[in-house]
C-alpha cells in the first residue's frame, strides 16, 4: 500500500514540477491536468471514492477546459510565453499572495491532529450519508466554495487578458 502511495506521489509531484518548468503553456496545462488526476488517484488510494470521482469530473473535466480556453483565447500567437517577472511590484505581490496561501495551508495542516487512532476506522460512508451531510450541515460551505472557485477563475482571466485599444488611431 505504501508503495502505491509513493508511486502516486511521484507521478503527482513529477507532473506538477514539470508543469512549472515547461516553457510551453499548453504542455503546462496538460501536465497540470495530470497532477489533478494524480490527486484523484490519491483519494482513491485513501478510500474516498466519491471525492475522487468528483475531483476527476470537476478538475479533469471542467477546470482543465477553462484553463485551456483561457490560454488559447488570451494569448495571441505564441503559446511559448517567456517566464520572467515584468516589475518588482508584481514580484512582491506574487510573493505575498503565495506566502499567504502557503501560510493558511501550513496552518491548517499543523492545526489538524494527525495522530492516527489505534481503534479500527469507522465504516466507510455511503454516498447517501455524504450527500445528506453536504446538503444539510455543510450547505453554506459548499456554496461559498463554489463562489470562491468562480472568483478565482474570473481573476485568472482578468490577469491574463491584455487590454488593447479596439482600433489603432487612424
Amino acid at each position, binding site marked *: 500500500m505504501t508503495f502505491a502511495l509513493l508511486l502516486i506521489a511521484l507521478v503527482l509531484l513529477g507532473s506538477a514540477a514539470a508543469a512549472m518548468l515547461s516553457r510551453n503553456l499548453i504542455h503546462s496545462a496538460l501536465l497540470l491536468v495530470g497532477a489533478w488526476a494524480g490527486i484523484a488517484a490519491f483519494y482513491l488510494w485513501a478510500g474516498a*471514492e*466519491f471525492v475522487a470521482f468528483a475531483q476527476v*469530473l470537476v478538475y479533469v*473535466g471542467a477546470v482543465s477546459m477553462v484553463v485551456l480556453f483561457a490560454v488559447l483565447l488570451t494569448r495571441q500567437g505564441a503559446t511559448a510565453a517567456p517566464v520572467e517577472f515584468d516589475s518588482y511590484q508584481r514580484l512582491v505581490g506574487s510573493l505575498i499572495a503565495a506566502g499567504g496561501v502557503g501560510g493558511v495551508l501550513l496552518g491548517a495542516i499543523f492545526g489538524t491532529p494527525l495522530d492516527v487512532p489505534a481503534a479500527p476506522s469507522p465504516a466507510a460512508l455511503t*454516498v447517501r450519508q455524504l450527500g445528506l451531510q453536504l446538503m444539510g450541515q455543510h450547505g453554506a460551505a459548499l456554496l461559498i466554495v463554489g463562489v470562491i472557485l468562480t472568483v478565482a477563475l474570473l481573476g485568472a482571466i482578468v490577469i491574463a487578458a491584455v487590454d488593447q485599444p479596439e482600433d489603432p488611431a487612424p
Partner: protein
Amino acid sequence: MSVVATDSFLERAPLVFRDWIVGHFPVALQWLVHHLLSITAILTVFGLFFAFTTIAERKLLARVQNRLGPNRSGLPWFRSLKLWGLTQPFADAIKAITKEDIVPAVADKVLHFLAPVVIVAFSLLGFAVLPFGRHLIPVELDAAILYFFAAGTATELAIFMAGWGSRNKYSLLAAMRALAQLISYELPLILSVVPVILVTGTLSTGKIVLDQGFWTWGFLPHWHVFTPWGFAGFLIFLVAALAESNRSPFDLPEAESELIAGHLTEYSGFKYALFFMAEYFGLTALSGLGITVFLGGWQAPCAFLEFIPSWLWFMGKLAGMIVFFIWIRGTLLRLRIDQLTRLSWQFLVPLALLNLGNAAFWSLTSGWTGPLAFARWGISVAIVIVPFLLLGRRLTAGYAPRTYRYAA
C-alpha cells in the same frame, strides 16, 4: 453478485463459466483473474459489437439513401459464400492496421500519439459500471453514475490534444468547436439523469435498475421513461447523448464538408480507426446508461417474458438504441454551431432544470392515491408540456411560417 440457484441456467451461465475458469488458479491470484476476465469479456463483446455496428450503420444508411451498401466481402477460400458482406468490418480492420501512419513533421509528436490512446482508454472505462444483466455488473460502485460521467470527461481533453497536437489550423479550430459543443451538452446530459437519482435516492446503477423492476397488472413496466419527468428526461438525454458522441445531426467537430475532418484531419491508418472506435464505444456506453437509467436496464418489459435471460434483454435494447441513432443520422441535417449552442443553453438546460423540479414534486407526492394520483400525473405532465411549448414558441418566433419565394 451472489448467484441464486433459482435462476435459470442461461441467466447463470456467464458467471458459472467465469467461476469455473477462476477456480483453476491459486487463491492468491483469483481476484486478478476475476477482474481480467471481466475486462476480456467487455473488450470481446463490445469490440465485436462495435464491428457489427459499423456494418449495420453502413447498410442501414445505404438503405435510407436508396443504395445497396457493402455486400461484397466474403470469406477467404470460400469465394462463393458472400454472407451479405458481413465480414466487411474485419476487412476494414486489416486495411486500417496496414495503412501508413503519417505524422506531420511539425506536429507535437507526444500529444499527437497520446490523443487516440487516451480517447479509447477512457471511452472503455464507462462500461465497467453498467449492469448488463441480473448478476452481470463488472464493478459494483456506490457512486457508479458519478464514475461514469467522470470517465467520460477525458474525451474532451483527448480531442483538444488531437486538435492542438496536429499543428493544423483546421484541426485546432474544429477542436475548439468540439470543446464548446461537448461542454454545452455535458450540462443537459447530467441534468437529465439527476431526476432519476433524486427519485431513486441512489447513485448505484444496479439499484436504479432494481428500482424499475415492477409491473402494474403484470404488463405495464415501472420504467422511468413511463413517468412524465422520466419521459422528458429521456428525450433530453437522447439529444445530449447524440451531441456528446459527435453523432449526426451534431457531428460539427468532424464536419467533413466544412472542416475536412476536424481534429481527425492529420490522422491516418490505425490512429484514425482508434478515434472512430472511441466514438462508437462512447455512443454504446451512453446508450447503455440511457437503458439503465430510463429503459429499465435488463428488466423484461412484461412479467411473462422474464424467462428470456436478462443480459439478452439488455443487448436487445442496446441494439435498438443504436439502430435508432443510425436512423436519426440518416434523417436529420447537421446543425450550425450557433444553432447547436443555442439549442443547449436556451432550450435543453432550462427544460432539464424544470424537469428536476418536476421530479422533486413527483417524489414528494408519492403518497397521493385515488383521484389525487390523477392530479399528480396531470400536474407533472403540465410541468413538462407547458414550458416546452412556451420556450419552443419563443425561440422559433420569427422563423415560421417559412416562405418560399422562388421555389413556390
